[in-house]
Every structure is written in structure tokens, then in C-alpha cells.
């Protein structure tokens, strides 16, 4: 037969256990809240990083476009400075990885043989590539000959542009 004293002791033990259980639950709540806050914080950080990286890539693409344009400009000048450029230069990379600002630029040239015996009226394809960090921008122009004697102009119709 359980005495009053024994019952009081059991009740006290039970209440003590409840106290620890409640405290544990509170800690769990607290830890969960902390975890939630941490996850939200880390997500915000991650989002911010992605957003920054995305914006940076956008900016770099914009910068690379000007580098690609610079490559074309320098290619056109090569033609201007050397009246015998058709014999001096051939298809291929006219210059590669030239430094400019935060990146580089390159120029690839293809002489498009039109099949006739006159090499002076062949069209010329310029591909200017600008690189800034992870961004690359390519601009393509075609120079067409208006004359069998070799006068070249940039074709309005043949140009294509790609970014990557």
C-alpha cells in the first residue's frame, strides 16, 4: 500500500521529469528557430551571391562586347595600313589574346573564295572575340568587295552576332 509520502515523492519525481521535458522542448524550439533563421540568412546570402554573380556576368558581357568590337577595329586597320594585305595575310587568327582592360580580344579571319580567278574580289569574314572574366562576346562581319580591283566595304547583310 503506497503511503502518502511515497506518493508525494513519486509525484515530485514525475514533475521533475516534466520540467526537464518542457525545457528540452523549449531548447528544441529555440534550436529550430535558430536553424530557421540560419537557413533564411544563408539563403539570403546565397541569393545575394547569385544576384551579384549574375550582374557581374552581365557587366562582363557588356565589357566583352567592346573588346570584340576593338578586335574588329584593329583588323580593319591592318587592311588599311597594308595595301598588299591580301598577300601579306591569309585566313586564320590575325591576333589572339591581346590584353585590354580586364580581358582580352582576338580576331579570326576567313577569306571566302568566290570561285573566280580573281583573288582581289573575295569577301572576307571577320570574327572578333572579346573575353572578360567568364564572359565571351563574338561579333562577325563580312567585308565584301565592290570592285574587281579590291575595294572593300562592310556588308550590311552578311553580319551575324552571337554572344556566349
Amino acid at each position, binding site marked *: 500500500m503506497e503511503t*502518502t509520502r511515497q*506518493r*508525494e515523492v513519486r509525484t*515530485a519525481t514525475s*514533475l521533475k521529469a*516534466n*520540467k526537464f521535458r518542457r*525545457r528540452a522542448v*523549449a531548447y528544441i524550439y*529555440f534550436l529550430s*528557430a*535558430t536553424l530557421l*533563421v*540560419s537557413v*533564411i*540568412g544563408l539563403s*539570403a*546570402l546565397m*541569393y*545575394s*551571391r547569385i*544576384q*551579384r554573380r549574375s*550582374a*557581374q556576368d*552581365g*557587366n562582363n558581357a*557588356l565589357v566583352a562586347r*567592346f*573588346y570584340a*568590337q*576593338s578586335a574588329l*577595329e*584593329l583588323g*580593319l*586597320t591592318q*587592311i588599311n595600313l597594308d*595595301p598588299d594585305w591580301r598577300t601579306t595575310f591569309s585566313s586564320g587568327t590575325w591576333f589572339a589574346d*591581346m*590584353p*585590354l*582592360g580586364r580581358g582580352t580580344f582576338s580576331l579570326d579571319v576567313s577569306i*571566302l573564295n*568566290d*570561285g573566280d580567278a580573281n583573288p582581289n574580289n573575295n*569577301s572576307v569574314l571577320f570574327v572578333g572575340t572579346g573575353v572578360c572574366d567568364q564572359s565571351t562576346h563574338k561579333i562577325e562581319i563580312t*567585308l*565584301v568587295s*565592290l*570592285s*574587281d*580591283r*579590291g*575595294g*572593300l*566595304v562592310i*556588308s*550590311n*547583310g*552578311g553580319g551575324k552576332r552571337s554572344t556566349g
Partner: protein
Amino acid sequence: MIFSNSSSSHFRTRYRGISLLDILVSIPLVGIAIVAALNTVGASKASQYKVNKTRQGHLLAQDLLSEIMQQDFADSNSGLLSFGQEAMEIGSLNRSQFNDVDDYDGWQASPPQYKDGTVMSGLPDWQRIVEVSWRSTADLQQISATATPIKHIRVNVLYKGIAVADLEAFKTIGLPPLEACCFSGGLCENLRNEACVAQGGTALGTGTYCANSACPTGPKVLLVVVDDTALTAQELAQKALIESWDNSVMLISASAMQFEFDEAISDADVAYITVGITANNLGTKLTSATIGVVNSQPSLLDDLKYSSGTAYYYDLSVGEVTDNTHPITSTFTNGSLTLSTTNQWFVENWTGLASGAQVLAVLTLSSRASLFVFERGASLVGGIPSPARRVELPWGHADFDFSTLTADAQTIMKNAIEWAAEEMVVCGDGTCAVGEACSCVADCGLPALSEISGSTCDDGIDNDCNNLTDCQDLSCYLDPACAAVCGNNICDNGEDCNSCAADCSGKTSGPPSGRYCCGNGIAESAEGDGSICDGNY
């Protein structure tokens, strides 16, 4: 029982909830967590703000750099050697007058402005700064103090004094500008100036293209004047007259050096000596010229070996054709011919005329030679064979007013130039000259029945005289020279977006209003202004 119950209730009250100690411990922890969270959010916001500002800075830099890249490499008036703003641009408060790249050197504005000077709204703390410099062709990183064909452009964008964007690019002289270049027979090709001159053509000047220029089909006339940099009114009148006959005119001062004459002679078909020049300045510089010479300065009769005697002036307006068998006078009948609308000083040779001269006209008051010619090889003074055709015109005084020349006199002058240049097209002279192929059976025979594929489809001649030359003519349809080449990046005749998508762009799907096909010969609205497509090929 009551005690027991109250005792139990007491325990429940004592151990319910979180102890003060728990609260004291948890408050700092929660505080730290909140502070960390707020810091994270704050850092995220700050980062986003920075990203936005950087992006905004890049767009501002792009806007200005794109504007600069669209400008000319150098000012067309001040040339390649000048750098910086020209007189009319110095001190301008905006960029509206800027027309070349280096005008922008040192340009800065805060807040940023549009080209016309309008301030961009909402950007009070922003500033754009431009630097332009010549760069060495050998080392692009090297700034050059002297003119080079390469300019480096740098646009720096600052926000509240801090650099947020920095764009760079090279601008160069680019392709050499082409201009219409004329060759003999009126052939025109778009070439760079040096290539044109090197190949014996005449460049018509910057901004001209064969599409908007007509090449003179007549001879190239070397006009000898007093000062080729400042023509007199009479010289301008003669030049205009000669050009009106579809001739091109090159100018040279009578005082130019012999080597300059030799160089000019090599590029000309005929020389025309104007009456106002000082004979001593020209002297014998054209005596041995292997091109035709038409002279109207009688003081040169001895220098040119036309005559060893004297010449006299007469104030009159009428001459007399004595020999109309010559091409120069063939359009007239022998007899009186009015040369000027008012009396002018005309000249005749009195004595010492070289034996090889053929007299075509005299002045009414005498029977002495006034208009005479020497055929190539005919005897000049001293028996020297004439190196080319020579003509002496009857007008011969510095006061001669060319505005009074009659149409007949102008015809004589025109014929004289063409005959001396040996480019006078005379049907029946046995020579099939340029322009006669379809109009003079006597010299050129009957035209071909058609263009011949594989033979005459690339000779630049309308062989069958049907007004269709080479590939324009259906007979040349199968000629290799007329075949379209797919893959040459040019939308050739006969190609379209369906037959050669590599060369001819197009959009054949989607809404009908957005479709177009380059090469089909139709200017479709989706092409925009048509310049990328059919309007341009």
C-alpha cells in the same frame, strides 16, 4: 487529502514553464541570432545596392562609350594629325558639336548628360569621365605622343566619387574610305584613293561612289593654268566648258617643274594650254610630250615648234573654214564661221609655219593660218616629227572672253581636244572605238547574235547590243561567272532564304507580319527599312 492536493498543486506550480535561468540564457542567444539575421539581411541589402550601382555604372559607361565609338576616327576638316576639340567645339557645354573620337578626351560631367546637354534625371551623384589617347601600333598598351591610326578610349563612371565602372575600347581608322574611281571609257570602280591613283584612275573625292557619280567618258585633260591653286575667271570658264563635254580635268601650273609635268603627262590623254599663262613659265615643257597638245597661247608657237615666225592679233568675231575634211572641222561647211558673239582678239600665224601643219581655218582679214593641226609624226619646225597630235586654236589673247564663244567655236574646241587625245569617235575611220560597237557597223561590223556562255559573259561588253551586259543577259544564265555561290555570305542573284539560308537571312515561320525572305526581291515590312535584305543586295 486537502494537504495532499495542495501539496501536489504546489509542485505543479513550481515546476511549470521555463525557469528564469532559461530565460536569462535564451535572451542573449536569441539576441545573437537576431543580430546575425539582421546583419545577414543588411549585408544582403548592401550587396544588392552595390550590385545595382555597379550595373547602373556600367550602363552609363556603355551609353557613353557606344556614342564615342560611333564617331569618326578623326575630324574630316582637321585631319588625322590633330587631337582634341576643334575651334568650334572648345568651350562647348555639351557634346552636341563633338564629331570625332578625340573630341571626348577629358570630357566629364556630373550629373551625366545626354549628347545634346540635357541632364539625366535622378543621377545627381554620378560622374562620367573620358580619356582618349593615341596608342602605338607596335604596342597597344603604349600611349603615343604622335598620331597613330589607333585611339584608346576609356570611360570611367564614379558614384559619389568612387569608381564603379570602367570600360575601354580601341577605335581605329578602320577600312580605307572608298571613293568613285574613274578609268578611261567611263569605267567606274569604288576604290581607296591610293589604289585608284596607282592604277591610273581618277579619284572623284571622298564621299563619292560609283552609284551616285558618273565617270567622264571623254579624255583626261591636263589643263595648264597660271596657278592651279587659284584659277582666274577665264580659266574657270574654260575648265567648266571642258568638263561639260564629259572630260575629266587635271590642273597644273605653268611654272611647275618638268618632272611634275612628266608625271602629269603620264596620267593624261591631252594637254590644253590656256591663253593667260606666261609663255616663259611653260617654255618647252610640253614640246616633247607624247600626248596630244592643244594650244591657245600664241607666244608658245616657237616653243612648241609650230612656227618659227610671228603671229598677229585681230579684233573680230568671224573666221573662215578652209578645210572641212578634217575631223575637227568636219561638221562645218567651208566658208565663214562666227566664232564669238562680240569682237575678241583672235590670232593668226604670219610667217614660219612648220611644213607639217594642216591649216583648217583662217581669219577673215587674211589668208594666214589661224586654226591648224599637226598629225602624229608630221614635221614641226626643223623637221622634227611631232611626237603626238598638235592643235593651235585661233583665240589667243589674255583678254579673250570665253563667255562669248559661239556654239560653233565650242564645237571646234571640243573636237580639237578629242582629236588631239586620239579619242575622237568617228564612224567610218576604220577603228571600232569604245561606244561604237552598237552604233557603227562600218567600223565594228554587225553585233553578235547573243552573248556566248563560257566566252563573252565576263568581258564587260554588251556583245549582242540588247542593252544587257554579261550576267544580265539570259544567254549567260549557265555561265560559271554568273553562278550564285552559296556559302560566300553574300545573297547573290538567284539565291534566297529558301535556296541558300547560309547567305540569305529570313524568317519563314511565325506570324505572317513578321515573315520575310531575303533574296526574293520583295521589300517586306519585317525587314525593317529593307536595308538588311532585298533593298541592299
